[in-house]
């Protein structure tokens, strides 16, 4: 577990890069088309369907809705990251998993005051990876503990 905490998963939504602590992830599910039921939606909550995961239906959340991003990938080709939360497992739909990196490769980066006010409804922290801004994904904004008001 110590090793997992020192690594981060990189994923993309459209052309935007995100980073997520590996410790949050239960499983990465590819080829989800047969396991996802897109008929049960609650778009106000960002839930676009349910995923059959280990004999249990879990909510599938598409973050592009809240972030107002355009997905670059057809739904059948998207990847579901199963994350754990205080309310149980849930699935996060992403366009692409770009890899896993050691935390040491990320460089801290301050959000400039000119941007902080407007982007704060979507994210609050950024790190640089090879000079590319990577948004630190905050799962609690999307599902589970409502510790951050959005």
């Amino acid at each position, binding site marked *: 577990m110590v090793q997992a905490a020192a690594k981060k998963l990189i994923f993309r939504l*459209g*052309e*935007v*890069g995100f980073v997520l602590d590996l410790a949050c992830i239960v499983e990465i599910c590819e080829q989800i088309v047969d396991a996802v039921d897109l008929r049960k939606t609650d778009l106000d909550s960002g839930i676009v369907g349910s995923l059959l995961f280990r004999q249990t239906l879990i909510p599938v959340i598409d973050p592009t809705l809240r*972030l*107002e*991003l355009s997905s670059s990938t057809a739904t059948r080709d998207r990847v579901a990251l199963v994350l754990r939360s205080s309310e149980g497992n849930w699935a996060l739909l992403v366009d692409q998993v770009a890899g896993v990196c050691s935390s040491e490769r990320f*460089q801290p*980066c*301050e*959000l*400039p*005051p*000119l*941007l902080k*006010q*407007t*982007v*704060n*409804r*979507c*994210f609050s922290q*950024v790190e*640089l990876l090879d*000079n*590319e*801004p990577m*948004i630190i994904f905050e799962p609690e904004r999307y599902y589970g503990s409502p510790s951050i008001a959005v």
Partner: protein
Amino acid sequence: MTRFGLFGCCQIDYAVPLLQLCKVVHEKNGFLLPGIEKTVAEVLVDDGRLIPLLFLPGLSHGDAGAARTAEYKIIVESAAGLIAFSADRTFGVVAENKGEILDSGENGIVGVAGNFKYQGKVFSILDVDFLAIELTRGG
């Protein structure tokens, strides 16, 4: 005496006071971030800092492609922090007394403090401090 850096992007020619001009970068790609206003075309990374690239006054906000793929990105310092503008041509640095300052008149463009006429071409003098605040907050 005021000196201006002179630039152009698409149909717009503009001037930035030299004292506010930090850096001209060549063929530097920026990044999209969620939540940025439509008046911000992308975000540049320079020396580990994030710098919003703003649409020029009068340039359509729907045409992010031209702003993002421009050959040059002009980084300027506003009172509120660093911002950047796109340029696809440069005209060098020119002292104010080599040209003529024109009043922008009653129908001036928001964010343009005046005009500078140099060698028959009219450059909009950007009000950098105003644009930094207005455009990053969706004005």
